[in-house]
């Protein structure tokens, strides 16, 4: 029974990894896949329903919706992956150092993190990017501002749990330096739970970016991004629903694939450290 479940979760993991890789490839080769230029406006082709020339129709400025959706994949997928990678590395490093060395710096950093986590993450992101004035870089800063904190808590508690184990002591007595202990003995032990958390986060970070862009705080127009495309198109929902539908579908499918991937990774690595404490609301 257990073996069967493990095999099933392996298959699931592989399937969703393939889906995720396909999405990344789509976003890389958006230029080659797009049938039209995503930024060429054409008044004569305004709000055309889907046709063979424009498979997803055109928007209010006659731009090809399919091409914009493909180019939007680049923005959405890459910015989410980049931000998750940055926060993952930074947060984990801070967490390992805090847990390993402890002391006053650790206490101060943990109080700061308590404070940051006292805000709902998106509320802080909306305020930060609103004050910084929008744009993709500012949106990343805004989401990253709170995004690194759960990794710190996770890594720190992982370190504290194993810090006084015999094999760590043995490594220390045999002359290993602090850095080598952290890199060779501590990190491998807590890596799977950190990686799981990072994978689970990809989907919600994507939703975060899309939300900021929808509110006009993410990418600047006319840059193709799903959230901002939906926001631009919402005024003519009645006359050209495809302008909302297709970027919406692309967003939902992508987020679902990454969410499933996160769940599959969690099941496969059998990580149960993700308690209610570090759950971040979307």
């Amino acid at each position, binding site marked *: 029974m257990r073996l069967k479940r493990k095999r099933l979760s392996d298959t699931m993991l592989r399937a969703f990894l393939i889906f995720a890789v396909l999405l990344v490839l789509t976003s890389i080769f958006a230029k080659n896949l797009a049938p039209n230029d995503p930024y060429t406006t054409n008044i004569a082709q305004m709000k055309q329903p889907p046709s063979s020339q424009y498979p997803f129709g055109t928007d209010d400025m006659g731009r090809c919706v399919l091409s914009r959706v493909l180019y939007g994949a680049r923005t959405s997928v890459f910015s989410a992956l980049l931000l998750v990678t940055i926060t993952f590395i930074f947060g984990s490093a801070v967490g390992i150092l805090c847990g390993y060395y402890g002391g006053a710096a650790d206490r101060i950093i943990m109080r700061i993190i308590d404070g940051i986590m006292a805000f709902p993450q998106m*509320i802080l992101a909306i305020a930060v990017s609103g004050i910084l004035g929008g744009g993709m870089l500012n949106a990343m800063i805004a989401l990253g501002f709170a995004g690194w904190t759960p990794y710190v808590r996770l890594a720190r508690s992982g370190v504290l749990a194993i810090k006084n184990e015999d094999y760590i002591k043995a490594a220390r007595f045999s002359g290993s330096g602090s850095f080598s202990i952290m890199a060779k003995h501590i990190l491998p032990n807590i890596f799977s739970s950190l990686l799981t958390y990072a994978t689970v986060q990809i989907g919600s970070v994507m939703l975060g970016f899309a939300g900021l862009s929808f509110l006009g705080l993410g990418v600047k127009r006319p840059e193709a991004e799903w*959230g901002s495309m939906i926001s631009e198109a919402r005024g003519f929902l009645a006359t050209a629903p495809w302008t909302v539908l297709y970027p919406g579908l692309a967003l939902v499918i992508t987020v679902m694939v990454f969410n499933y991937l996160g769940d599959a990774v969690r099941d496969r690595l059998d990580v149960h450290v993700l308690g209610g404490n570090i759950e971040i609301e979307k």
Partner: protein
Amino acid sequence: MLRYIGRRLLRLIPILLVVSFIAFSLMYIAPGDPALKKLVAQGLAPSEEVLKLTRESMGLDRPFIVRYFDWLWNFLKGDLGVSYAKSLPVSQMMWKAMGKTSVLALSALMLSLIIAVPLGILTAVRRNRATDYIVRFFTFTANSIPTFLIALLLIYAFCIKLSWFPVLAKGSIQGLVLPTVALSIPCAGKFIKQFRAEILEQLGKDFVLGAQARGVKPSVFLTHDVLHNAMLTIITVIGLAIGGLFTGSVVIESIFQWPGVGQLVMDAITARDYPVIQGFVVYIAVIYVIINLLTDITYRIFDPRVKAD
């Protein structure tokens, strides 16, 4: 119990200090001169003379940390400054808008519970059967759809195709229906997941096995024991949902023109009205912290076994 509450309140102090410091600093992360930004937001011509006076009246010539404690002292007295754009006290604007947001958030919370409690029980009892898979697919989808898309789909279906509701809520009761539904779908998705897990755990406990062995009907121990314990889950999920509800309401309010804090802050961002953005952040954080504290305390009252701190 009182000692526990006292300890929790004490632990709140450093958190609130950091929270207020972050909120205060927000004002200064924007590029440019704060005095100039204030004048631009008020639509005044920034001559050198006026700029100097504004800088002085804002206390910009004093050290940052002094200004912070000044601001904190005023905040403790309930004064969050004056809006640049509307010349009204920020706290007054917040209170009014917060009332509207609470109506929206509370009705969404109620609706989410109404949807999630029965579905959570159903999926747990019918584990790994068709119903379970269907509901789980729904919860998964609900967790992957952005709130704004749900709102637009609802508008498309019920306002444009069926014309059952007005598109813009403007604070009316009839206009409350769609924003509530839009806000509660992701929330319900999360709740169902929690309930399912909780009830499955309860169903695996010894007392349930014992009851089953004695031939007690499932409906009896479900309502008597399992659901009683699931009450604790309700308290937990409410605490978890608050952040999402506030975030969702910013988006929902800006779509349906519901005059709550979300709309207030989006207007403030457009108008570069920094004190309002700052006030918004502080209010939400304080409410969020207090609600989390209250859920923890309630949890302890309902379940005296919890000793973990």
